[in-house]
C-alpha cells in the first residue's frame, strides 16, 4: 500500500523470510508456520510467520541463597513490591512443597547441594543478604514470532515468556528479559511506545509485541540492505534478549 521508504511489502517479506530462516544461526532454530487455511478463499497477507523458542537466564539475577534447609525455599532477602507478588510466591511455595513430598529419592542429592551452597554463603552477613533484591535464577522459556503487519507494512515481533512452571510473565515481569543496558533507554519512554500486550493475530493467545510504528522510520537508514528482515531483527532482537551471531552481518 505505502510506497514510502523503510517499508516492506508482503511478497518481499515472504522472500526475506526464506533466506532469514536458512542463515547460519548458531543456536537458534526458526520454523515456518503457515496459517493460510485459516481463511481459505480470502487473499490476506500476514498468515505466514517464523517462530523460535529459547531458554534464557534473566540478566543480573543472584544465585539462590539458602539460610534454611529447604533448597526450594530460596527467597531470602527478597523485597516484594506489592502484596500480590507475595501471595503468588506463597502459592508457588505450597506447590513446591507438595512436589517435595513426592520426590523422596532426590532428597539426598539435594541435601548435599544444600550443604555446598550454605558453605559458600555462610560468610555473608545476614544484613548484606537481606539488602539485596534476589530472585530465582530459574530459566525462562521465550517464544519469538516474526509476523507481518499489513497496517504498518513491516515485520513485527511478538514474544511470550514462560517460567519453568508454565506460568506466563506479566506486563511488569516481562522487563526481566530486556537486557539491562536497554532498560534505561526504554524507561525514558513510556511503556506503550515499546512493549504492549495483544492477542496474537493468528493464534489468538495473549502475547507481547514490540510496537512497529517506528520501524519504517529507523529502517530508512538500512535502505542498502540485501535482507530487510535481518537488518530489522539485528536492531529489535538484541533489545528483547536474542543475540544475533556476528557472522550473519556478512549476509547483509
Amino acid at each position, binding site marked *: *500500500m*505505502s510506497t514510502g521508504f523503510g517499508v516492506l511489502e508482503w511478497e518481499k517479506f515472504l522472500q526475506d523470510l526464506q533466506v532469514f530462516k536458512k542463515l547460519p544461526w548458531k543456536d537458534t532454530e526458526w520454523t515456518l508456520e503457515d496459517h493460510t487455511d*485459516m*481463511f481459505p*478463499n*480470502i*487473499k*490476506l497477507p500476514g498468515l505466514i510467520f517464523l517462530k523460535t523458542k529459547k531458554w534464557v537466564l534473566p540478566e543480573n539475577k543472584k544465585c539462590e541463597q539458602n539460610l534454611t534447609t529447604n533448597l526450594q525455599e530460596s527467597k531470602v532477602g527478597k523485597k516484594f513490591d506489592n502484596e*500480590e507478588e507475595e501471595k503468588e510466591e506463597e502459592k508457588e511455595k505450597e506447590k513446591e512443597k507438595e512436589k517435595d513430598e513426592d520426590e523422596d529419592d532426590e532428597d539426598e542429592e539435594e541435601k548435599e547441594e544444600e550443604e555446598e551452597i550454605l558453605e559458600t554463603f555462610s560468610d555473608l552477613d545476614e544484613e548484606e543478604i537481606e539488602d539485596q533484591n534476589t530472585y530465582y535464577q530459574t530459566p525462562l522459556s521465550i517464544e519469538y514470532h516474526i509476523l507481518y503487519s*499489513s*497496517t*504498518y507494512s513491516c515485520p513485527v515481533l511478538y514474544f511470550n515468556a514462560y517460567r519453568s512452571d508454565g506460568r506466563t510473565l*506479566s*506486563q*511488569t515481569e516481562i522487563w526481566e528479559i530486556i537486557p539491562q543496558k536497554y532498560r534505561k533507554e526504554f524507561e525514558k519512554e*513510556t*511503556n*506503550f511506545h515499546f512493549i*504492549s*500486550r*495483544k*492477542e496474537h*493475530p493468528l493464534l*489468538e*493467545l*495473549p502475547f507481547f509485541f514490540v*510496537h512497529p*510504528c*517506528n520501524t*519504517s*522510520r529507523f529502517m530508512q537508514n538500512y535502505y542498502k540492505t540485501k535482507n530487510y528482515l535481518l537488518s530489522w531483527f539485528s536492531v529489535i532482537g538484541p533489545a528483547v534478549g536474542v543475540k544475533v551471531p556476528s557472522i550473519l552481518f556478512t549476509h547483509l
Partner: protein
Amino acid sequence: MERTIVQINTENWNCKIPIIINLSSKYTTQLQKPFRPLFMSVPRSSYLYFDKEKIFTHFEPVLKELEINNKNFYLQFNSEPVKWNTPIGVFFDMVCKSTNLPEKMPMSLQINFEKPPKKFIEFENETELYNYFASTFKESCFLLAKSATITQKITENIMANIWNGLKNLSFDEYKRSIQPLEINYKEQSSLAIRILLNKKCIQKTTKPVNQETEELLTLLDIFKDLDLIKEEKLVPMTYLIQGITPDPNTPLAFLSASFSHPDGFLYLIITTLN
C-alpha cells in the same frame, strides 16, 4: 452531512446494553439459597473492565460461603469468555444477535472465579488496558492518515484525555481531545476496519475509493473480498455494525466516520449461517 455524522456518533456513544450477571452454575449447587443477580446497563462503546470493582463488590458477600479466596474473576456468556479488551457492543453483536438462538434481553452473563481460559488476557490493572487501547488507537490513526507523523503527534497528554473522554462516556470530550491530531476524514488514505468473521478477527487495509473507477467502496466490496457473494447474491449470513445492519451499498467512508468505536476502528461483525 457533518452534523449527521456527529449525531450518529453521539447516539452510538449513548447507546447502552442491559445485562444481568449471575453466579456460574457450578457455584449455585453449593449455596443454601440463590444469590441475587446484578443488573447493569453498560455502554456499547465502553469496556466492562471499568465496572470490574462494582461487579466484585456485588458478589463479595457470597465468596466466603463458596470458599473462594481470590479477587480475580472473569465473565462468560454461556461458555464464551467476555474479553475485557473487547468493546461491549462488539461482544454483544458477536454472541447475542448473531446466533440462531432467540434474542434474549438482558444479555445473561455468568461470573466465574476460576482461572480463565488461555486465550483470555488478564489485565492486572487499568494501566494495562489503557496501554492496549492506546496501541489500538495509534494503529487506527496510522491507517487513517497513513503517515508516521500522526503517531508522533499523539502525546501522553492527548492519549490521557482521550481515555478520560471514554471513561466519562462523553463524545464531546473525546472529540475535543482528538482535535489536535487533525484527522481529516475526507482525505483518508486507508480505512480502519476490523472484521469479525465467525468470531475470527480480520484486519483488512482498504482504501475508501476504488483506485481505477474512483467510486466510493461499499460493504459489497468487502463482502466480495471475503468470498461472501455467490452468484451475485449474499450468502446466508447476518452482519452488524454497532447493532444495526446497514444497506450493503453504504459507502465505507461514511460508515467509518459515523460508526467507529472510540479506539478508531469500525467493527463489522459477520456470522455465516451454515
